[in-house]
């Protein structure tokens, strides 16, 4: 499996899902992610899996809930408006401690918006767009290879921590084609799903999957348990990439496509003799706070770049040492709004 | 003789059994119990046919019916 193949980011997601053993895909078309259902409508049935183009995103997320409750790996994918519609279902999954993968290829909003690249759904993804104060795992690939690898990781983390996991990319990463190695799923040990509904087969006790928690103190205890699980995630699963940070006097931070663009800008800055490094969070939830804390212990200038008017900036500010200055450069989504490396270099020059 | 038993911890005193029995063998008590329910009781064991219609009507499955087989 080490021959390289040249595929779209979205296709890499679909291929990785199959490699991860997804049994059910439920989704509804929406640009710029429709390649995912299109690929899976073709390939998933060949593996004996189920593909349903559902009547709506709401139906889709609830089928994921059902299939996941039944103990199989299930997923859905969407963008902007469709992800908004799934919020109730995601909240139920979180409340029912169900795994399940949701792929969000962000497009511009609010409303119908348009299909250009956006990172303005960071809050929605990381703060729980649904009700109840839950969180989900959020992974942010910046290349087609990572689309593949992180999709597999999303399934594993989701199963291990029993919570929904999201692959969050923008349309640049979703639509881009690159050569990747279609790695096999790593042999991560996974917990047995003894909580799944199976029709009490093999004489098992009744299993119930639910989010209703009415007992005295039951829900409160659940919240603290979730909180502890989030802390465990933060400790064990925070992932990030550092580039040229060792001697950096200024840190640029960005995720997804913006990080790609920033990296080229940093090459330019280095060429001009500026000691600039990149801190790219790979997990957005858990946010790799430790990396920010560590770097900001010695480097006091940060520049956060986002395709929005500023969302991750909150997490950055909450993570760095108190005396760090965090500047922001935003290019909210829209036709022609993607920043160029030249433009980011200009911003670096201003702040350096 | 067929007969029925009524589980008072299940009965909520709705009275649906009382209209099911054509022989009027089930009635409700006058005074409510500690949950506020006027539970049903089997009034005339002798006339029961064991037809189980009272049990079929009971939404709380409070009635058991016995009969020679």
């Amino acid at each position: 499996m080490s021959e390289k193949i040249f595929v779209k980011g979205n296709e890499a997601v679909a291929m990785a899902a199959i490699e991860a053993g997804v049994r059910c895909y439920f989704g509804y078309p929406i640009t710029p992610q429709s390649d995912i259902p299109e690929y899976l409508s073709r390939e998933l049935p060949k593996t004996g899996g189920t593909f349903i183009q559902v009547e709506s995103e709401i139906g889709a997320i609830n089928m994921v809930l059902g299939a996941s409750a039944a103990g199989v790996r299930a997923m859905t994918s969407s963008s902007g408006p469709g992800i908004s519609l799934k919020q109730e279902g995601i909240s139920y999954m979180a409340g029912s401690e169900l795994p399940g993968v949701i792929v969000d290829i962000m497009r511009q909003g609010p409303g119908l918006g348009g299909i250009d690249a956006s990172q303005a759904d960071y809050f929605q993804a990381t703060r729980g767009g649904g009700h109840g104060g839950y969180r989900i795992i959020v992974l942010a690939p910046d290349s087609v290879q990572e689309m593949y690898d992180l999709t597999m990781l999303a399934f594993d983390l989701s199963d291990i921590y029993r919570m929904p996991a999201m692959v969050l990319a923008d349309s640049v990463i979703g639509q881009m084609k690159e050569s990747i190695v279609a790695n096999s799923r790593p042999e991560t040990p996974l917990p047995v799903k003894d909580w799944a509904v199976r029709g009490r087969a093999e004489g098992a006790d009744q299993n119930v999957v639910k989010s209703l928690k009415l007992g005295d103190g039951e829900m409160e205890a659940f919240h603290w348990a979730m909180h502890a699980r989030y802390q465990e995630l933060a400790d064990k699963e925070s992932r990030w990439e550092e580039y040229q940070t060792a001697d950096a006097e200024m840190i640029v931070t960005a995720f997804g496509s913006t990080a790609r663009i920033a990296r080229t800008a940093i090459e330019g800055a280095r060429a001009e003799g500026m000691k600039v490094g990149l801190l790219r969070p790979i997990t957005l939830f858990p946010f790799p706070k430790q990396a920010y804390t560590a770097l900001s212990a010695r480097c006091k200038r940060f520049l956060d770049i986002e395709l929005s008017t500023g969302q991750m900036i909150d997490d950055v500010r909450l993570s760095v040492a108190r005396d760090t200055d965090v500047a922001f450069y935003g290019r909210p989504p829209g036709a022609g709004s993607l920043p160029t490396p030249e433009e980011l270099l200009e911003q670096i020059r201003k702040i350096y | 003789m067929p007969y029925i038993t009524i589980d008072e911890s299940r009965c909520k005193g709705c009275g649906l059994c009382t209209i099911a029995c054509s022989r009027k063998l089930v009635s409700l008590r006058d005074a409510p119990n500690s949950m506020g329910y006027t539970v049903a009781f089997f009034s005339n064991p002798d006339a029961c046919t064991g037809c189980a219609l009272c049990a079929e009507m009971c939404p709380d499955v409070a009635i058991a019916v016995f009969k020679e087989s």
Partner: protein
Amino acid sequence: MRHDVFISGYGGQGVLLAGNLLSYAAIHQGMNVSFFPSYGVEKRGGSAMCTIVFSHDETGSPVVGHPSVSILLNQLSFDKYADKVRQGGLCIVNSSLVITGDRELPGIELVQVPMNQLAIDLGDARMVNMVACGAYTARVSALPRQSLDEALKKALPERNHRLIPANIMAIQAGADAAQR
């Protein structure tokens, strides 16, 4: 060395296929490639664009502010993107549809190729994109013309492989027309 090329035209001119073709050619040359397409909401009539970055190292940003080469297939693309080409770069235009007029592009070399005409001459107007790719190879040594022959097999679905010879001719025609 990192290369980049930007291609733009209207939907239906085969911009994305051209981009794919150049991508596969670069892969064939052992390079890493990032191919980044974008298009308007409309399926047809809207504009289609793509950027290809290729390099023996990392490709870095898929977004390029000032491409070293732009291939512009219609008037709108020319009007909008010609002056985005980087200083010292190349602007290959489809002169069958584009009137460059008195537009000045200082520091940018303009290469005019009558792509529609060449394609029609070869019997299929839809080969405009092939002509364009040929023109590119004539001017950018990183992708030799022959690399496109192999690339065609990957870029075209199996059922269209019978068209490869015709496409090769169109590529050649483009290359010839763009030759310095």
